[in-house]
């Protein structure tokens, strides 16, 4: 309990400190007194930079990080596989493909990107989830990786090799995207917290759940739709950002234990923090240009995944 509580205190403090730092840092450095003066209305130029460029980006990174981390944690519960994550299973790349194709052939409509990404994600899950992949963890990952590559290649085919996801990202994100992300993200994260007990229930076998009267298929489907909703929303706003959904929940388990009612809120906070750190570093390392959060996450995530598998942290189906 004490370890859990200190983990929560530390991650909250880290999030606040990092958010303030992210507002201070950039092509132009603003000190705390400068920010304070700007807030009081004495430095309109500073205020304008912060409000137009930095604040929307900080908010977007935090909410997207929280959404991706919880989507990862829930996928791991549903697939009973600690490597399951929408970004490596092809869910988000299917979303990108559908967004691209929909943009090409359909007239514009409200929430077009979000809905197309959602549809793509659902298609990917429909292709992915079957009796065999649910029973055999390695098969799930291999099929997922193959799907992911296929969707990515199709996207490239239709764009004649131009990488569309690099055109998204947090750079130049507008308040309107941020608002939409905040609203959909808030709804999704509340749903995550409400449905957390289901993630715990899925630790039992389907037979056992059926014998206590739980509609296990509906439960699993509900959680999968939530996963697709969360990851599709982020994909629609900023493109695919890989590995957050694997790294964060697995580290969260180390700090707060195995109960999804604590793993999920902790993953939200740590996901928010990690993506904010990564995006802020990306803004700074190659000034005046920048590295996308997706690129940095891929660099960090690959090795992490390898360590996780090699160290035996890869629990697919674990018998008692």
């Amino acid at each position: 309990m004490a370890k859990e509580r200190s983990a929560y205190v530390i991650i909250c403090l880290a999030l606040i400190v990092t958010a303030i730092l992210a507002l201070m840092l950039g092509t132009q450095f603003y000190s705390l007194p400068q920010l304070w003066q700007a807030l009081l209305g004495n430095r309109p130029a500073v205020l304008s930079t912060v409000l137009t460029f930095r604040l929307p980006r900080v908010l977007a990174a935090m909410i997207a990080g929280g959404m991706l981390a919880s989507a990862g944690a829930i996928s791991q519960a549903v697939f009973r596989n600690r490597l399951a994550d929408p970004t490596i299973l092809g869910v988000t790349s299917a979303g990108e493909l559908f967004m691209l194709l929909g943009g090409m052939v359909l007239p514009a409509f409200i929430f077009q990107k979000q809905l197309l990404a959602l549809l793509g994600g659902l298609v990917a899950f429909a292709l992915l989830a079957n009796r065999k992949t649910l029973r055999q963890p390695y098969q799930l990952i291999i099929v997922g990786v193959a799907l992911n590559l296929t969707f990515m290649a199709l996207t490239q085919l239709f764009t004649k090799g131009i990488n569309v996801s690099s055109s998204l990202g947090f750079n130049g994100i507008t308040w309107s995207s941020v608002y939409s992300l905040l609203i959909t993200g808030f709804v999704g994260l509340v749903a995550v917290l409400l449905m957390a007990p289901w993630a715990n229930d899925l630790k039992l076998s389907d037979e056992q759940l059926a014998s206590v009267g739980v509609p296990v298929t509906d439960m699993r489907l509900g959680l999968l739709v939530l996963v697709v909703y969360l990851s599709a929303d982020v994909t629609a706003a900023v493109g695919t950002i890989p590995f957050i959904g694997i790294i964060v929940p697995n580290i969260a388990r180390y700090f707060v234990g195995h109960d999804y009612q604590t793993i999920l809120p902790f993953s939200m906070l740590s996901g928010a923090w990690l993506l904010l750190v990564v995006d802020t570093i990306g803004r700074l390392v190659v000034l005046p240009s920048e590295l996308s959060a997706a690129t940095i996450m891929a660099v960090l995530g690959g090795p992490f995944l390898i360590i996780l598998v090699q160290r035996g942290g890869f629990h697919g189906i674990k018998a008692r």
Partner: protein
Amino acid sequence: MELKHVNYGYPGSGQLITDFTASVPTGQILSIIGQNGAGKSTLLKLLMGSLSPSSGVVELDGKPISTLSSRKRAAKIALVSQQHQIYDEMTVKEVVKTGRLPFHSLLATITDAEVRPFLETVNLVQAMDRPLTSLSGGQQQRVWLATALAQEPAYLFLDEPTTYLDIRYQHDLMALIRKLNVTQHLTVIMVLHDINQALKISDQLWLIKQGQLVKAGTPAELLDEQLLSQAFELPIKIVEIEKYGPYVIQLTA
């Protein structure tokens, strides 16, 4: 609980249960015995309503069991299997809490206090915060029993509950089941491999062969060398052991 002319076959594998008619004696311990593949576990699933008969009907309190929702059924019928699987770490109390799911909304959080009495019954309160996998096989089986009891069932089903337990734990579990049957008026329905264990603990037995009821009766009525030899297709002898009573042995070397 009653079976009326129940037939059942898995698609493609022929008839598993044939014209089965029998009624479960309320408030007693009933054991189903027979060879491997005789249809014991299938019969258990039919009785629990987790399989539906291809013809005939299984009735609970005078109504077909198929008309009950899975939640309502779970509040009447609980199951302890021979082996349970969990896919991630769970503490003892977390496992037992799942037994309370039939009584709550699916999104509810269940308190420790609610499951404490069931852990007391199986004498595992002190282990409630421990990971399930840190417990011995016998203790784990008691956790699953507590989970079943948390459903507050009228009927407790056990599918070969002693298979993976050593004889000491087998004895303790059987004693506990008898105690529950007496104190909580539970109707207990078990599939048991060990004939002697079944004869010792049961009030009633169903001897089945190839999906058909050979004989239903008390242990005394089933202690018949010819009957058992035919049902198990083995030469069987019943010997009298001092301070124990009749004991079934098979005569093949």
